[in-house]
């Protein structure tokens, strides 16, 4: 197995600004949900990915429309980047008729097949064989589309993870496994759930490369992902990318996360992916005060509009209770 080469990439200033917008939008979306759920306005359980946005943006930015993603319960931003409108997304969290599941569900379990989004189940890791199946069809059709499959370090202890990686390795499938290692599976720290330091090492047991990277550096995530995507499109099989990160909030908004120290949280907050990227853009004169304000205003307007829309959207009506039900 040849060692992974460092992928060269070039992003135009407009593209970097677009990434900046996505980081800000996804952060703002989650922050607003965190407030709304405490006010009792959101019906969904809210599992924010605050602190982990660089993974979403870095992995989704290089995707085509035809590519598929299999996101996690914390990856609301991937839905937005893959083309779900902010109003529809907010409606989904409010369980309104205008949401993705027309009010039948209020979390991220509803995929959007035509946009290449597979909704996840609560059985973590169970999305990975599905991702593998999607990738198998791309191989059957000899097309160069790819699948991005997300999972947490906790789910890498589930049998499905191993079955999926093994099959993807055997069949050399175009799937990129993205591990969002945020250090805790709900409350259980990584050292109590696995005897190795890097989830990335697990890929080697299945015959392909695994790399561990700084998941809070959007460009590092992008660089690794576009490299893996290029290999997958060329028929060179899967890659596992482990993005080391940290979730700032609890597992969900009802979790006070007393199992970790203030010092640990503060240390990770100092590695906030957004200021890091902001500094990068400013020192390269891609971003200035005026441009930053423009992005921030656009983000605020988008979120305000989505909340307004979702609040006023209709509930599903009782006479539709059996619509779309199979049995």
């Amino acid at each position: 197995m040849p060692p992974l080469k460092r992928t060269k990439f070039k992003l135009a200033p407009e593209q970097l600004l677009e990434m900046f917008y996505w980081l800000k939008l996804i952060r703002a979306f989650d922050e607003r949900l965190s407030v709304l759920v405490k006010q009792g306005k959101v019906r969904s359980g809210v599992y924010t990915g605050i602190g982990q946005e660089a993974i979403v943006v870095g992995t989704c930015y290089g995707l085509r429309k035809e590519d598929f993603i299999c996101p996690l319960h914390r990856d609301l931003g991937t839905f937005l980047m893959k083309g779900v409108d902010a109003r529809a997304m907010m409606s989904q969290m409010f369980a309104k008729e205008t949401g993705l599941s027309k009010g039948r569900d209020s979390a991220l379990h509803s995929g959007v097949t035509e946009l290449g989004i597979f909704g996840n189940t609560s059985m973590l890791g169970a999305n990975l064989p599905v991702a593998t199946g999607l990738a198998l069809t791309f191989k059957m059709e000899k097309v160069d589309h790819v699948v991005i499959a997300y999972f947490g370090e906790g789910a890498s202890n589930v049998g499905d993870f191993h079955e999926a990686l093994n099959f993807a390795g055997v069949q050399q499938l175009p799937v990129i496994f993205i591990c969002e290692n945020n250090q805790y599976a709900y409350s259980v720290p990584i050292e109590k759930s696995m005897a190795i330091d890097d989830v990335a090492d697990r890929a080697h047991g299945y015959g392909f490369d695994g790399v561990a990277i700084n998941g809070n550096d959007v460009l590092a995530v992008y660089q690794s992902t576009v490299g893996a995507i290029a290999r997958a499109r060329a028929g060179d099989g899967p890659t596992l990318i482990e993005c080391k990160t940290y979730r700032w909030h609890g597992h969900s908004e009802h979790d006070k996360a007393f199992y970790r120290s203030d010092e640990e949280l503060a240390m990770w907050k100092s590695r906030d992916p957004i200021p890091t990227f902001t500094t990068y853009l400013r020192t390269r004169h891609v971003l200035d005060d005026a441009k930053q304000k423009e992005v921030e205003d656009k983000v605020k307007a988008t979120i305000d509009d989505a909340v307004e829309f979702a609040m006023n959207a209709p509930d599903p009506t009782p006479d539709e209770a059996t619509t779309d039900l199979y049995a």
Partner: protein
Amino acid sequence: MREVTYLEAIREALVEEMRRDPKVFVLGEDVGAYGGAFGVTQGMHDEFGDTRVVDTPISESAIVGISVGAALRGYRPVAEMQFADFISCGFDPTRQPGGDVAVSLRWPRDGADCRPRTERRECRRRVVPLAESRSVVRPPAGLESRRAVNPL
């Protein structure tokens, strides 16, 4: 009336469907060149090759999950659970919110192996519907088996 065994009826139906619709494929343990533990897929690998008669590792959960993924893209996978006992290993993926995907899971009916033993002849048909929104078809005779292969 022509007499056929269960196995022959299922094989005939699978072959017919696979010739008719390129989106139909079978996957499972030992279904490839070996032809399946009970011989259902015998000869099919020769006709359809590796990509449509897919040998899998011993990974029941992945077999079902992969089928869901393929069905999401409009394929009609027919997955074989080698023995009825093994089907519970693939329960979780049957709960995937994949919408109206068409996955056929096929497994040997209870009593397929008539030797007196406690393993590999279990009856699971009453358990499977517990995985929501799924139909179980238990064909009573050979030709019915053939119709049941693609009930969806």
